[in-house]
């Protein structure tokens, strides 16, 4: 595709400048991670002496061995894994069930509007941190995985995305034919809506998985025992806050954990699932975002 204006000298100069600028921007986004990766594979002494740039110095996998050897780290990895799976399954089940009735017309389902507002209002107004915290504690959810899963199980935004998808993608004729044949709503939902909506279900599931993998604050306020921390919370405590008081670790482990290379290794391991998944996920995300912005 060549346009007339592309032949002008000033446009050519702009084009070169543009390629350079965009390359620099892309590098700015990826170099910090490469630096961390390089540090994680470097010798401890070299890292502490600030000798590592974008390539490992005194290559070693020592930091990864120390990380894997730390049972606190492994346990929190397992907690995160559990949280992602359980959280996503529950969240999707609840939201899909709710999206089906909400996708009906106002005529077919009286009260749809009221229900819709019930959910949308939560996007506009919140009880805030302290009251939410008190509800979760009063329900006895402290130190259980449910404190990490239930409060965020219904995201009104994702719910609306699902509703809009159902409304625009499921052929009404198919549904009416099934109703004629005497099928009830559960059957229609299960046999017609779900199979058609697999792309949307995949998209929103990925949204939810990323959310759960990255969440850390709820783990910090609702888990009093480090044993229950998900990985993000664990890393927040030892890398960002550098707080070891909650962990019953010996001096040796503590020294290991505060090594720069070990920190880098832990950061990289936590980032890895996102690095692997996101190039595949991004086009779904793009669809979801555009869906969210341009729907009628």
């Amino acid at each position, binding site marked *: 595709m060549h346009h007339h204006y592309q032949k002008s000298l000033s446009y050519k100069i702009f084009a070169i400048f543009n390629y350079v600028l965009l390359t620099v921007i892309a590098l700015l986004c990826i170099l910090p991670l490469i630096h961390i990766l390089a*540090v994680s594979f470097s010798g401890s002494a070299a890292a502490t002496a600030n000798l590592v740039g974008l390539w490992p110095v005194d290559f070693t996998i020592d930091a990864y061995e120390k990380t894997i050897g730390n049972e606190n780290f492994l346990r929190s990895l397992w907690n995160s894994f559990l949280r992602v799976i359980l959280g996503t399954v529950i969240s999707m089940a609840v939201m899909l069930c709710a999206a089906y009735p909400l996708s009906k017309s106002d005529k077919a389902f009286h009260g749809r509007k009221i229900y819709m507002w019930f959910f949308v209002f939560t996007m506009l107004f919140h009880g805030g941190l302290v009251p*939410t915290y008190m509800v979760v504690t009063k329900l006895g959810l402290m130190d259980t995985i449910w404190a990490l899963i239930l409060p965020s199980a219904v995201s009104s935004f994702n719910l609306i995305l699902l509703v809009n998808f159902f409304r625009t993608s499921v052929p009404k004729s198919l549904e009416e034919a099934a109703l004629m044949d005497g099928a*009830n709503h559960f059957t229609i939902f299960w046999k017609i809506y779900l199979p058609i909506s697999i792309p949307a279900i995949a998209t929103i599931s990925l949204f939810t998985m990323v959310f759960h993998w*990255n969440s*850390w604050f709820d783990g910090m306020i609702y888990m009093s025992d480090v044993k229950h921390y998900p990985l993000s919370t664990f890393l927040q405590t030892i890398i960002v806050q550098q707080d070891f008081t909650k962990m019953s670790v010996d001096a040796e482990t503590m020294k290991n954990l505060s090594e720069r290379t070990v920190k880098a290794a832990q*950061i990289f391991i936590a980032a890895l699932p996102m690095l692997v998944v*996101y190039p595949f996920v991004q086009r779904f995300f793009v669809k979801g975002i555009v869906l969210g912005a341009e729907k009628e």
Partner: protein
Amino acid sequence: MQPAVDLKGQTAAVEVRKQRKWRGTWQLHAMLLPAIVIVFIFQYIPMVGLVMAFQDYEPWLGFLHSPWVGLEHFKTMFEYEDARQVIWNTFVISTLKIIFNLGVPLAFALLLNEIYVVKFKRTVQTIVYLPHFLSWVILGGILIDMLSPEGGMVNRMLSLFGMDSIFFLGDNDWFRTVVVVTDVWKECGFNTIVFLAALTSINPSLYEAAIVDGANRWQQTIYITLPSMLPIIIVVGTLSLGNILNAGFDQILNLYNPLVYKTGDIIDTYVYRVGLLNGDFSYATAVGLFKSIISFMLVVTGYRLAYKYANYKIF
């Protein structure tokens, strides 16, 4: 005779239809139930809990027996130097973020749109989306390392140019800049998505006509591209109004420290420290409620403006 029978048949049919309708709709209500229960418990009950803001809440007395103090906590908030500073910080940081998170991605989308080598364009897009998917815990860990005054990457670069090292995360003159720049860095790529989508939907015949008229690319951008994108710019801009009191809790909690409370402490982090760490439930709730109310008004205004000027509807 004949009509009566018909009538009977009709009423019977209506009855059957009504029954069938209810038979159908109870299932619809039932399917909503789990979501309703969860949202009611975790979203609506906390809203009731906001009454704490008007009490001196004591855990052992509960909501029913804690003494009422009216607007006492709100008064304290406005008299208290710390709280006023926190509200101001929130406002400054979020306003800067809103402006740059609109302008930078827009410029970036326009630049990307001038790239005709598809592979290069795709690669750049994929790379710049990356930071969006990483949490502030991970990015916080990376930034604390890279911005460290003792041999962090950035300061090492500065020293190459003969500059003194800067304690970016511990200096009140720098903290807000770091917060805004790193936020734009994290979200810029992702925020271009909507703009890129809008760019592809501009009618090509507009450009063809402009080229016939002898317009160069810059003139095309000014007279065609930007006006065509105005609706989406308005939508993004008005909807971000609701974020004026959201300065980025996750980010700041991972980057700040007591040295930079003066410029970096925001309403959310303040509520967290005062409420959950110091246990001053009522006062923290009052500050949170103040934020929720202002945010609510701004969100509603934002939606209204987006609807009025760009015909945007959320559902």
